[in-house]
């Protein structure tokens, strides 16, 4: 009974051994599968499913936006005995529209959405009602602890957690992910943001302004520490109130900013040595330029030194200085400062500046653009250009992401010109229209701007102003720029009825500087005679 040298018994043993080995191998495979390959199953998927966007933090790690777990409530209407009663009770528990629910329950749909993004408390309430045929789908809702203070800059998401506006949209690629996604650290400082919001709200209320906006910018890194645009909205409530607005006037709108633009006419003149701070200019009662006559907003002496032209904000003096630079040179200079093209930042909201075409940039345009009329830019673009002027002359691009150090770019202006402009801006605050922005000990430099608003069909509204103030401190070695703007402020009894920037925007900017400078660690420079103990 042999076959190839192996007995029947031996063959049975071999077959049995092979079967056992196969069974053993199956067990081993299953073991490996359970112990190693299916390790990931042990992780709950709920967190990954619920949290779909990363946190947004301020520069100190304070929470600005986070996904909170909520539920979407679905129902199988055919399981309800009394659909009217179910619609009534579920509407009361979730805030859903009762008529919509009843229509859905009476329809042929087997599975309907009752309410989206209900809170854990609402879910517990609904569960306690004891209805059969209800299902809760885990979801997430974006929550903004800072509320209105951060609404315009952070923006909002849609119910599916996609960015809709602000940094939520601009940083959508970084924010979309799962619970493992690292938080996004912004350049914002929640303390600065709050102070800016507080002072702008007070100024807006005091002067009954239509809108107000402002920002705080680090002139060496380009980091935006705070950005406020009023009116704003509650980002935690999808519904906009009648006084709310989702328009970010600092980034999204362009304005003729008026005299604040004289900063650039003087920078160019000093850069090209076409004037010096002590040169005297005739002012007179009007400056004729072709068929136009340029006037002053306030009474001026017959002559003014160039530094006083800036300090007292003379349109006639500035027009003469701008004309010395010439239109072509002025246009190139403003273009290099980024004032003739849309400014691109992490914010999706951006504005296209309005300026004459090269063919229409004549003498009149050169003169008026010198003192801030005939050109419209966004306040954010203006602030970036002004930061470039004062930071030693190197290009600054605003950013809403935290930076690690000096981020100044190309040298656009000579450092000596930048230093001379800082001295002039300080002179404006000590001897000119910016006095009310002075803060003892912080050496604030700055410039006022009061521009009449343009009419829709050309011309200007004489009594509708946009007033602004650009403050820089400490002026010797600038760290921060504060820009404040009020849209259609009205004079008060305290201001003698004046609504110019010197009475409205400048004091507000000064108060912002006074409150944020200590928090930002700027040393105060006051020599005080101490009592000898």
């Amino acid at each position: 009974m042999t076959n190839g040298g192996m007995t029947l018994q031996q063959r049975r043993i071999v077959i049995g051994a092979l079967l056992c080995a196969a069974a053993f191998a199956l067990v081993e495979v299953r073991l490996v599968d359970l112990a190693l390959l299916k390790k990931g199953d042990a992780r709950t998927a709920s967190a990954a499913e619920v949290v779909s966007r990363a946190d947004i933090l301020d520069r100190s790690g304070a929470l600005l936006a986070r996904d909170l777990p909520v539920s979407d409530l679905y129902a199988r209407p055919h399981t309800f005995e009394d659909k009217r009663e179910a619609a009534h009770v579920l509407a009361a528990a979730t805030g859903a529209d009762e008529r919509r629910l009843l229509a859905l329950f009476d329809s042929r749909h087997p599975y309907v959405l009752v309410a989206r993004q209900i809170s854990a408390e609402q879910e517990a309430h609904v569960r306690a009602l004891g209805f059969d045929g209800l299902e809760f789908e885990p979801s997430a809702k974006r929550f903004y602890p800072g509320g209105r203070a951060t609404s315009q800059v952070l923006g909002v998401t849609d119910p599916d957690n996609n960015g809709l506006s602000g940094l939520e949209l601009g940083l959508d690629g970084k924010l979309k992910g799962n619970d493992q996604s690292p938080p996004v650290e912004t350049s914002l400082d929640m303390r600065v943001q709050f102070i800016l919001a507080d002072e702008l709200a007070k100024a807006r209320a005091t002067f009954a302004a239509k809108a107000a906006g402002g920002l705080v910018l680090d002139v060496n890194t380009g980091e935006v520490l705070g950005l406020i645009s009023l009116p704003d909205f509650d980002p935690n409530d999808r519904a906009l109130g009648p006084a709310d607005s989702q328009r970010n006037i600092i980034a999204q709108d362009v304005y003729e900013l008026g005299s604040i633009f004289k900063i650039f006419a003087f920078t160019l003149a000093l850069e090209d040595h076409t004037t010096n701070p002590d040169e005297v200019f005739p002012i007179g009662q009007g400056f004729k330029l072709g068929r136009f006559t340029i006037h002053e907003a306030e009474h001026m002496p017959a002559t003014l030194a160039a530094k006083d032209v800036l300090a007292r904000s003379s349109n006639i003096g500035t027009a003469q200085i701008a004309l010395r630079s010439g239109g072509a040179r002025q246009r190139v200079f403003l273009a290099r400062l980024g004032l003739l093209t849309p400014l691109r930042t992490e914010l999706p909201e951006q504005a296209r500046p309005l300026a004459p075409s090269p063919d229409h940039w004549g003498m009149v345009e050169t003169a008026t653009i010198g003192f801030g009329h005939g050109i419209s830019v966004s306040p954010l673009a203006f602030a970036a250009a002004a930061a470039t002027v004062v930071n030693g002359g190197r290009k600054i691009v605003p950013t809403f992401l935290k930076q690690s150090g000096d981020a100044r770019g190309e040298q656009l202006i000579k450092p000596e010109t930048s230093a001379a402009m800082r001295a002039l801006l300080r002179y404006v605050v000590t001897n000119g229209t910016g006095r009310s922005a002075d803060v003892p000990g912080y050496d604030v430099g700055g410039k006022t701007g009061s521009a009449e608003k343009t009419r829709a069909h050309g011309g200007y509204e004489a009594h509708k102003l946009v007033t602004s103030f650009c403050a820089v401190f400490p002026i010797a070695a600038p760290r921060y720029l504060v820009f404040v703007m009020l849209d259609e402020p009205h004079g008060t009894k305290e201001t003698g009825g004046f609504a110019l920037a010197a009475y409205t925007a400048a004091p507000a900017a000064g108060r912002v500087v006074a409150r944020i400078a200590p928090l930002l660690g700027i040393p105060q420079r006051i020599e005080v005679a101490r009592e000898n103990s």
Partner: protein
Amino acid sequence: MLVRLVNFLCVAIIGMTVLANYRISEQTRLAGIELRATNRQIAEDRAATAVLEAKWEQLAEPSRVQAMAQAKLGMNDGATLQLSALELLPRHEDAPLGNTEVQQASVDIPAPVSPKVVRVSDAIGK
């Protein structure tokens, strides 16, 4: 006889190995269930912590704290120039610490604004 004994031992060893493997497999399955439950608990706790952190940030929001401080404690924001960084505070010693320059602290305090002061105990008692 020897062959039968060897066969029996082989089958016995295989049987015991199968049982041992089954036991390990079962323990792994149970550990997996326990791990899933623990991970779920961790995820729920993390989610709850995240909610609490967000709520805390909302409660500590500066405008809310300012409104409460003004309403309940009669505090005012008029004297923020008193704030200064620690390293800027004046020192009594002649020699500066760490070779840093001694700088003037914040000393120019605005005129008092006469806030409406209420006793804390009264405010809390209301």
